[in-house]
């Protein structure tokens, strides 16, 4: 009798904790949408989403520069971070001996534990000045003057690439470890070299796990705020769409909210919540993608 009661209490308690999580997401979602929707209704969805000018003091709320900025920075972060992370994971699983692995694994864990302000400081002092040297030196003739500040999507992309490394390394490491031994043994037995086995057999076999790793990395890069604010320059302009755009100062969605929330008037605040809605949609799409991929993997 007593034990049944205990079971019940524990069940109810766990149910409450579970429902709290769902409830929180709903609450935050509804709140952000309710606060941000009026701006879309007042100025028109396309004008807000695709408007190229963000100038709240004149009542112009175009989020487009921030959308482009966010996508641009995230793309750079993934293009640098994903191959690096995958490389580290393959090295750890296939090549590194135990001694070296014992050095690398804690280092990666430490990387995950560094607060983002510290990444930001490092970016502002070290990476930014190197990029500025580059922009004002060899590239000075090709770049417009406002692209020679050191604050750029590239600077932010590099910092984010380092920040997402732990996510990508850890998850693709698990995926690679989960590949059955027989695959590798079979491949090697057929006379295929180690390197070829890695990129023809192991990596393809772990593909869905690696893609999940990359998507989670994208999620981390999208949501990062502090470090990005410190190195991206926060200029609300759309970067030019050729290679010089790499050196353009830009602004991300998260930075937009964090920068201006402090002093925002009522309508300005709604526009910042509208920025939040866009970010929310980005994250929902990403999560759905992950779920889809994980499900597909399960079916195989």
């Amino acid at each position, binding site marked *: 009798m007593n034990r049944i009661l205990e079971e019940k209490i524990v069940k109810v308690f766990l149910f409450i904790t579970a429902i709290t999580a769902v409830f929180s997401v709903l609450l935050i979602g509804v709140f952000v949408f309710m606060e941000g929707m009026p701006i879309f209704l007042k100025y028109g969805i396309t004008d807000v989403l695709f408007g190229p000018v*963000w*100038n*709240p*003091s004149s009542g112009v709320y175009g989020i487009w520069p921030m959308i482009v900025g966010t996508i641009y920075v995230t793309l750079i972060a993934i293009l640098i971070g994903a191959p690096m992370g995958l490389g580290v994971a393959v090295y750890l699983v296939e090549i590194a001996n135990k001694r070296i692995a014992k050095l690398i694994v804690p280092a990666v864990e430490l990387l995950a534990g560094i607060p983002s302000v510290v990444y930001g400081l490092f970016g*502002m*002092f070290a990476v*930014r*000045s190197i990029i*500025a040297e580059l922009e*004002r030196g060899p590239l000075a003739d090709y770049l417009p*003057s*406002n692209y*020679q*500040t*050191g*604050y750029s999507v590239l600077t932010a992309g590099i910092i984010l690439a380092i920040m997402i490394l732990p996510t990508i390394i850890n998850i693709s490491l698990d995926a690679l470890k989960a590949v059955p031994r027989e695959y590798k043994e079979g491949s090697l037995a057929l006379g295929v070299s180690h390197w070829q086995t890695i990129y023809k057999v192991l990596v393809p076999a772990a593909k869905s796990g690696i893609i999940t790793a990359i998507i989670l990395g994208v999620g981390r890069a999208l949501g990062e705020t502090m470090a990005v*604010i*410190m190195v991206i*320059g*926060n*200029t*609300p*302009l759309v970067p030019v769409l050729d290679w010089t755009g790499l050196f353009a*100062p830009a*602004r991300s969605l998260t930075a937009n909210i*964090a*920068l*201006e929330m*402090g*002093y*925002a*008037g009522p309508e*300005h605040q709604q526009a910042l919540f509208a920025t939040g809605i866009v970010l929310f949609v980005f994250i929902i799409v990403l999560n759905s993608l992950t779920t889809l991929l994980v499900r597909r993997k399960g079916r195989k």
Partner: protein
Amino acid sequence: MKRLVGKKLYSGAVLTVMAFALVLTGCGGGNNGGNNGQGATNAPTNAATNAPTEAATQAPEPSVSGTVTLAGSTSVQPLAEELGTSYMEVNKDARIEVAGGGSGAGVKAAQSGTADVGMASRALKSEETGIKPVVIAIDGIAVVVNKDNAAADLTTEQVKEIFSGKIKNWKDVGGSDSNIVVVNREDGSGTRDAFKELVLGEDEFVAEAIIQNSTGAVREAVGQDVNAIGYISFGGLNDSVKAVKINGVEASEENIKSHSYPISRPFNFLVNESSDPTAITQAFIDYVLSPEGQAVVADHGYVTVE
């Protein structure tokens, strides 16, 4: 902030219901707490005026109770809220309610009497009559460049053209041949609004500027980049950056007080001329102008008034 005032309001109501004795002891305690000396910066003023003012203000204070409503400039608002909070610590019977609205609204509120005190972050215009301004603080903005930058003296016109994007190279204003990196504050910042009003006027800020969202971040950005220029409020100045002279006038407190440094504006409390202010309103204004009140002013990076 609003919520905090709300709490104070509630506890204030509870207090009034309670016995006088409690109220009196509350006052005594608060007075001691409010006077934790702002040592270095205020030493001269304190030494000169501390003793007489305390003797004069301390005795009548417990008897003054009531509410003071303030409305107007959103630039003055944060400082007024801080002054209100520190005054309510000293005088537990007082309630200071601060609302925004802008300098224009502050003038109207004081004229019509909808607020006890109006707030304006500018001097009064000649057509704004029937009210008396009391300068409670001066907001000075320094234009800062890197310490290694050769440019050290700019005119207001040059500053305006740099921040509106018309001058793009340091060689045009006495520096080396390199591009100017303009560091601006985020939209909505009070310092940005003030700088725009005082320097740019009708012109718009250059859109390509780097944006940093705090005094510290602007200072950091300028301190690190030899080509950068930014502006910060006086309280934020330190060794990591160099404040340039404007029209040949050095950015210093004395020059602000003597009105020779151009990028500054008064923070005014406005009171109606036709009717005498209530006792509590007068007590609050006296507190703001006292060494304790001015210590709060200095704490928040504004220039004090004598």
